[in-house]
């Protein structure tokens, strides 16, 4: 690693730079720790490049501005935390129905409600997935560190465009607000991840334009041409398509980092900032002679089922550290058979999960 040049950077700057480099030209948001840093960067940077950045009167207005701007051709972005996600949620359903490419960062903090403002958490993993009426699938990516915050943000914009869908970046207070030294090359060099195709699944978004084709965007059930319909057959086909456009392409969206130890019977599976404690714990366990595998999940939703199952050969126990009461563990439970023991390492007390706790869970 050429690590002579290191950048001092936090997650907020990495995410803002990722968005700008992805071609984002419209941002609207409302201040909330730990997402305000992203708002500040975007509002300062966008006008420099001819884009638009504004602070809405609330999160509802902010996401509403984004959706409107997207229909006239903008590449849009907003960021908040759990409380803001509550206010976004009705409009997330609208974005799904209108098929708006919309990138949303949720920088998680410990709830419920205002909670322990401001401590790190991973309590909104299910909330992001299920916050829309109807339970339609969305895409959720979760970076474990600052370079990944940059690269996954860029990827989120590609996915949003391809699937014409809301795409979340699920991060947290620790990653967004901690300044770290990072090898400059890691911020620049794209990770070795499979490319996301450019062409959209289905029709590309057709923005309003003077002398363009007339377009109707509506949150009501509509035909493929945008006309309101109450025809049950048309509605059924449309709604199935909304679900399938994402669920039938799980493999394309799936992004994980397996670190498998041949012969290991324990797999530690984690995501977000907690995956870093996992990495530290696994390294220490291995250095004391233990055989243990690790799996970092970057694409939390849709669940990368195949990629997870691929890592379970010979595994008798899965340890799942996460800063909530076991939100992802329940998903893994759904995938695995009863021969595999599932062990949660969970914290909701403002502290990060430590490598020691994971090692303790390992030694059981």
């Amino acid at each position, binding site marked *: 690693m050429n690590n*002579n040049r290191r950048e001092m950077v936090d997650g907020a700057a990495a995410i803002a730079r990722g968005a700008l480099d992805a071609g984002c030209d419209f941002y609207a948001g409302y201040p909330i720790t730990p997402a305000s840093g992203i708002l500040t960067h975007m509002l300062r940077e966008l006008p420099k*490049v001819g884009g*638009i950045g504004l602070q809405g009167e609330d999160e509802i207005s902010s996401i509403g501005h984004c959706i*409107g*701007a997207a229909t006239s051709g903008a590449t849009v972005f907003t960021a908040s935390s759990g409380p803001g996600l509550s206010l976004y949620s009705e409009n997330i359903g609208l974005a799904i129905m209108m098929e708006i490419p919309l990138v949303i960062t949720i920088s998680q903090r410990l709830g419920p409600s205002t909670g322990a403002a401001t401590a790190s958490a991973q309590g909104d993993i299910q909330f992001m997935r299920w916050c829309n009426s109807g339970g339609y699938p969305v895409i959720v990516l979760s970076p474990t560190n600052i370079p990944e915050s940059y690269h996954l943000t860029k990827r989120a914009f590609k996915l949003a465009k391809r699937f014409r869908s809301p795409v979340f970046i699920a991060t947290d207070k620790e990653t967004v607000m901690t300044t*770290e030294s990072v090898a400059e090359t890691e911020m620049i060099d794209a990770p070795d991840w499979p490319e996301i195709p450019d062409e959209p699944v289905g029709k590309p978004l057709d923005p309003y334009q003077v002398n363009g084709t*007339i377009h109707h965007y*509506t949150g009501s059930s509509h035909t493929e041409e945008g006309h309101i319909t109450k025809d049950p057959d048309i509605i059924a086909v449309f709604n199935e398509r909304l679900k399938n456009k994402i669920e039938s392409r799980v493999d394309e969206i799936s992004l994980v980092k397996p670190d498998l130890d041949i012969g290991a019977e324990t797999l530690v599976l984690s995501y977000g900032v907690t995956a*870093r404690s996992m990495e530290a714990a696994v390294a220490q366990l291995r250095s004391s002679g233990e055989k243990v595998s690790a799996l970092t999940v970057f694409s939390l939703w849709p669940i990368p089922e195949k990629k997870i199952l691929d890592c379970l050969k010979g595994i008798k126990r899965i340890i799942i550290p996460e800063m909530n009461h076991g939100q992802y563990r329940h998903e893994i439970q759904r995938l695995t058979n009863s021969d595999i023991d599932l062990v949660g390492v969970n914290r909701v007390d403002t502290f990060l999960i430590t490598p020691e706790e994971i090692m303790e869970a390992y030694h059981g």
Partner: protein
Amino acid sequence: MAEPVLDTYIAEENLPYEFCPGCSHGKVLGALSDSLKQQGLDPTEVVIVTDIGCVGLSDKYFVTHAFHGLHGRAITYASGIKMQNPALKVVVLIGDGGCGIGGHHLLNAARMNTDVAVLVFNNFNFGMTGGQHSVTTPMDSITPTTSLGSTDAPMDIAGTAKVNGGGFIARSTAFDKDLPDMIAKAMNHDGFSLIDIWELCTAYYVVRNDFGRKEMMGYMDSMNMESGLLQETDRPSFQTSYKHIQTQAGEQKPMSGLVLETKFSSDLDKPIRIVLAGAAGQKVVSAGNLLASAATLSGLWTSRRADFPITIQTGFSVAEVVISPEPVLYSGIMKPDVAVLIAPEGKAKIARLTKAMEETDTVYYADGLGDADSDATQLPLNFPDSAKKELRKNISVLAAGYLTKQLSLFPFEALKEAVRQIQKPKIAEINLGVLAHFED
């Protein structure tokens, strides 16, 4: 009057309207179509953004672009559409119900003076959901939700937009012959425009309250809410103001990262976790940044967290720095190797951490803070005598200097280089002066 492009902007294949007989909504849509014709607009130049409610059924009757979103939020979408493509003429059709649930958006769009035209279909109740009372329902009205008469003062929608700075504000009725003209003026105003159009919901409000056209006009008089143009200003629209911001911002440099190149070396062979705990205003976080940057300049890896109360100018201020020969994975600190107590607020805040420390760990304390409840070795911050005068203003950078000397994590030169590379020249000069006390 411009050359007509179309005879009507109504999508005639979708007629007749679904509205109840006598409902005013159809009249206003007709006036809008006439106005578009009078303005000679191409249908692709116009986006009609409808709210929810009976008024929200309107988008499908137009041959223009259309957008039908959520209840109360129409103005937010319209504003986004216009911001991104100023060539479009954006018209919002919203009910009195939408102006209630989305009142915040209405008054803020007026304040921003965003260039959209809002037509309020004000029929004094929620038509679509069964005639419940809305923000404009007159006092004493009978509705399903005010069965003994409403007791809330009605909201003056036009008045609200007016006092909040909306550029073009008018009040009309669905029966006004000049409504198409008024709509054209509103649409051509460069800034926020709103017409509060009073009208009749024949299914509910009219029948329950014996409120016909005559009664409506009488009510208007009794409330002193005159019709016609109420306000027209030449305050610049959001679009105009933001162009200036873009021009000014365009001259600034884009954001770039702070890159530090390794210049020094270090013998550190395992991670060290340091907590600086002081009070607001003592520049504790900045001292944490200096330590992290100096370590980075010395080939080490670092993370720096900050914790302070929401009321940032009072209370504690804590910086947690991890310095390591390998990239930092876990950036938390449950038990510091070194804690520096700079002020009582910080000492109290990290009491849990100092309590967890062991004999091999060290607490350095400023004057009067030497009795932490901890097994750690506790040592005073023994600043050089010459530095005493700096204590009030620059104790944190002194602490950074002191730690650098005591712990030998990296050369003292690295700390000075960090000051030069990451701090603004004026501050750097002060801090280099402070650090010089360690070299006398």
